[in-house]
């Protein structure tokens, strides 16, 4: 696939906008730079039916950059063309959000939800409105309401998990991430996120669960560049090794596993730095050595 730099180098505004749109890249400055002519100078008609997504794209980018006039102009064009469109209605709400008139936005989203109760995007805007206002419990509430209706929306589960993490509800966040792991068991990032939550929860059981999910993540994404898993695995193994609440029988077998996983993670990390950034390697080795010094089982 073509790289963004190459597309930008060519300077074809339509192609740049199309590339950013299709790849969902939020490069607002570039979008405004290349798209404002289509909106401001009325060149959009040359785009054919591609004009409307471009207007929307420019509108969103203009909101990002605070270019109120440009955003208004783009929205005006879209409202003129699609007066009854829910999609445009959402944009109106977004504009109100950007201007800080949350009440107006809430009103807009409310009316849209009533008119289009199955439109998930309006629900999501409704959640994000609460989040924008800093009302995290309300956002969690609205997100839960949403998930009652759209249970298989992974991104919503992820959002809810992040909201719970923000509010310190680690157990609930872990539940959300488990839902994500269930829906996408082969996605390593879900395992990492879940493992981090378990690791944060602490305790031998949770740490072991964290180690499991780190290990699954390493399994799904083999290689030495899954650094978050590797570091997580090191720290989890370290934490487990230092955990004192365990029986002698468990201790023996688990220590071996723990040591092996720690060694694996350490080896991969070393190989990664040796390959990618050799200057950092001594520092990493010292750090990992420090972790290993604390526990004899990890020094093997």
């Amino acid at each position: 696939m073509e790289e963004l730099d190459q597309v930008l180098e060519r300077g074809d505004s339509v192609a740049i906008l199309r590339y950013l749109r299709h790849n969902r890249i939020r490069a607002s400055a570039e979008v405004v730079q290349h798209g404002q002519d289509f909106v401001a100078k009325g060149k959009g008609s040359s785009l054919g039916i591609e004009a409307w997504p471009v207007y929307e794209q420019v509108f969103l980018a203009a909101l990002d950059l605070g270019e109120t006039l440009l955003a208004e102009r783009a929205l005006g064009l879209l409202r003129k063309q699609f007066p009854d469109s829910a999609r445009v209605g959402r944009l109106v709400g977004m504009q109100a959000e950007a201007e800080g008139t949350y009440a107006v936005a809430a009103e807009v989203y409310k009316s849209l939800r009533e008119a289009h109760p199955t439109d998930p995007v309006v629900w999501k805007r409704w959640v994000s409105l609460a989040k924008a206002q800093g009302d995290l419990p309300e956002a969690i509430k609205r997100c839960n309401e949403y998930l009652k209706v759209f249970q298989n929306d992974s991104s919503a589960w992820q959002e809810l998990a992040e909201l719970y993490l923000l509010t310190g509800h680690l157990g609930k966040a872990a539940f959300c991430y488990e839902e994500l792991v269930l829906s996408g068991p082969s996605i390593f990032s879900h395992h990492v996120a879940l493992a981090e939550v378990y690791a944060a929860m602490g305790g031998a059981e949770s740490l072991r669960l964290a180690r499991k999910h780190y290990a699954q993540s390493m399994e799904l994404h083999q290689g030495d560049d899954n650094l978050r898993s590797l570091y997580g695995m090191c720290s989890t193994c370290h934490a487990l090794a230092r955990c004192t609440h365990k029986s002698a029988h468990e201790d023996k077998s688990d220590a071996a596993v723990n040591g092996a996983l720690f060694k694996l993670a350490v080896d991969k990390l070393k190989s990664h730095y040796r390959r990618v950034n050799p200057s950092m390697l001594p520092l990493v080795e010292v750090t990992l050595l420090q972790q290993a010094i604390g526990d004899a089982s990890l020094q093997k």
Partner: protein
Amino acid sequence: MPYPCFRRISIFVSFMYLSFLFLIPSVYALYEEDAGKFDWHKSLLGPVCHARFEGNFLLLASSYGAVAVASASNSDGSLLWRQVIPLAAPVALPVRDGGTMDKDEKPAVKVLELVLHPQKRLVMALTRDPSTAALGVWAWRLFDGNLMWHVTVPASGVPLGKRVKAKEGGFLALFPDTVGAVDGETGEIYFLSAVDGTRIWKAPAIELMAVTGVVPVDGGTEKGVVVVGEGSDGKAQAFLVRLGGEKAEKIKSVSFSDGGLISHGTPSLHAFARPAPARSLALLLLSPSSSSSLSAADMQLVNPSGAKATPHGVLSSPIPSSHPSSLSASCLVLSDSGAVVEITLTQGKFMQRLVAPPSSPSLPLAFRAGPYVLRGEENQGPGVEVFRVVDGQSVGRVRGRRSLRGLWAGIRGGWREEEKEGRESDLLVLTVDKAETLVLQTMDDRLVWLREECLADVAQVLIVDHRPPAEGEKRSGTEDVTEALATSPLFEKLLSVVLPPSPSSSSVRDPHFGLTKILLFLCAPSSRLIALLSSHGGTILWTRDLPSVEGREGARWRMVQQGDEVLLVGEGGEGLAIWLDIVTGHEIASLPTLGLTPPAPSSSLLLFPIASSSSSSSSPPRLLLVDTRNATGHRARFLDGSSCAQGALGGREAGTEESLGDRPIFYHTLSTPSSGGASLQTYRLFKPSSAPSSPNWPFQSAVVGASSLPSPSELVVSTAYPDVRETMTAPSSHPLGDGALLLKYLNPYLVALASTASLPPSPPPASLNVTRDEGSQEGRRQGGDEGGKEVSTLYVTLMDTVSGRVLYRVSHFHVQGPVRMRLVENWLIYSYWNCKAQRTEIGSITLYDGFIDRKGLGLFTSPEFKERTSSFDGDASPVALQQTFLFPHPILTLGSTLTARGITTKALLVGFEPGQILLLDRRLLDPRRPTALPLSKTEKAEGLLPYAPHLPVLPPHVVTYNHTLHGLHSLYTAPSSLESTTLLLGVGDLDLYFTRLYPSHKPFDLLPDTFNHVLVSLVLLISVVGVGFLGKAAQAKALREAWA
């Protein structure tokens, strides 16, 4: 977003449709309705002997008795109409092998004079019929050639004198309502009505030795003609014959002291007259003297005799004067030195003026047209020099091609006296050269049209596949090159899908279906080779003059195709061989001499193409030429393109030998002496490997077999050989109605002999398989009743030319020739005239080799019959079935259809009087047509028709439509790449006709006539529009949903 996906699909589908639209035109198709549109007919004239310009019309007459009118303005030289004057009585001629004969043997009506009657707009010809020596006057309407009337005057008069050698003389004198026809032989004058040709009055014979001129008199009441001739005393005499008078009035007798007829007997005395005021007549008589001086006399003056002009040599071309001066007469004289001199007689004095300077060597050709005199020249290459009469200035030169034989000229649209200058470009020059190419050119050397009249003298025809030369290859070196295949623009291709095919679009498709052939015509007397393209209405691809063979004038040429080349072997002198490229006409190789001493008659030379041992295409073509003159020892020449080796072919058997090429080469000699009898001797060519007699000469031949006709009095009248291509592609069996198979006797080495004898039919020898048909038995009974009167009998004998055996023999009684024969696969067809029953009969013989029962061929059964693959296999003769049919017209020639794979039903082509071709289904001529009715179930299943003696001539099966091929004598067929289609070339004396045929009447591999072009185009159009519309609609819907 879903909508770009829809959009892409719609764009893709539209693109596919468009690609489909552009791809279709390259898928060529042939349509049934092409039939009847792409055939062409060439009307020829033969050697042109008279021509006359009349306004925009050009009257032409040829020495083959054809009279035609052409337009001087059209570019293709096509004739507006052509009429061939028939002979009063048919002349029996000996028929040669294949039905061809030399043109000089063919009698034709001589056209003595050709004029246009200006008032009645009738083209009039005075003719002499050589069969009856009768004089004829013919009148056709100028515009459409309808014969208005014709009068024949029987040759009843006594010839004028013994010294008259040219018995063809005759003159026409035209009056507003009457025509005077003067018989130059008898001196009789007939005045005929110009309206209907009824005889008004016959003038008494005039006492003249030879009539040399006739001048119509049209002044006041003295309507009549002045006839000028040579009297018995050697003096020029002039008679005034008044229309409706009772006697010929001798008005003047002029004696020339040293005059007389010149030795070569051409009409030597010429009279020129102008009507003058006061009912007087100015008359100028010219007579060449024996000492190349010229005498002239004025008939009008008191003492005219003895006046002499300065000698300028022998008159060779009469040039009538149109000098407007009254009481004077003038004429232009071409001397033997080439000078043109105007001699004027005014007030009793002769004046002379040089119009064109002498030219040496000059052609004895000159013509006057309006204010110009044209003279043939060869100084700077063949051409025509044009001089102005007024001042003798040369005003131009018209380039010719070859040595000229005839010259005529005319002014476009006629000429009036007041237009004397500035009309050079309107002068039209018509020339005919020694190779009979008729060329009409303008004064500024622009070609108006060109006609190759030597195509009327075709000796041999080859039809070969046309493979256009590679791009960039030039066709220089040949003349008359016409662009062969025009490249068609894409628009035309597109149009060809939507619209029904047009003749112009056929040029694109024809080469793909093998419908474009090159027709090679070898024209005998002119030794020219002309290549015609079968498409484009028979466009001339190239022409080539063959060199004259040293030691013999008018040598006979033969041509053989060898791959992409044609080999021409000249059989005069010591022989000459030339290899030419068929497509371009370029000479590839030649052998200046074949060492044939003394010159061998063409019938004793056999040509065998020998396959090259190396596979490379650049190796020269090889040929073995066997000279069979000496019956005891044949000699052969081996030609390999660059050298010619020769040696004797021994007549002995050798122990071990190598065969030449893939198959052994057999040849035979068939001697048919004119005294009667025929003997066949067969030989085999081989290379002895054990003991080569000479290292340079590897070929030997050995006698294989011999056979002869039982009676030495039998005269062979016709022979026929099968076409090897037909035998090779023929299916080997014929399925019967019950599933059994009749195995055909397919032998490429057959010869059929037709011989006649005027003897009472004798019992046939026991060794010969003789059957008689019903009619012949009837004939024998009749013959017995006549008390042993001699009966003319036809014997048809089939022989094997490898083993020399007689395979079958049949006799017919009361038969007269000509006999036409055609040997196709296992089928012999022959036609003859039954003089007892007064009808044309067609005999049909089929040969079968065996029979396989219905259950004889299966998974577990194999027939006991062993297929015969050699002429030496077994002694049993094939089973022959014979039947006779009646045909309602005299038959001129026989042919058969030939297709690429031999799957299509065979059909017979019958050329019948008066020059048409009939496609006759083979089933109609099947000897197995059952005579017992009703037909059995198996006979019905096989599709056998009940026997009916009369063969129908159904107009839809006449492939020449409304064309008549005058003197049709040969039919040539060639296969195309389409199995259903055969190409046919019919060659007549004066006509060529080419067409496509569907022998099974069902063009099964062509699109039907009812192919709905409009519907297909509409569906295509609607689909394209629909896809565009639906694409737009889908786009709109996708947009609506995306922004809902």
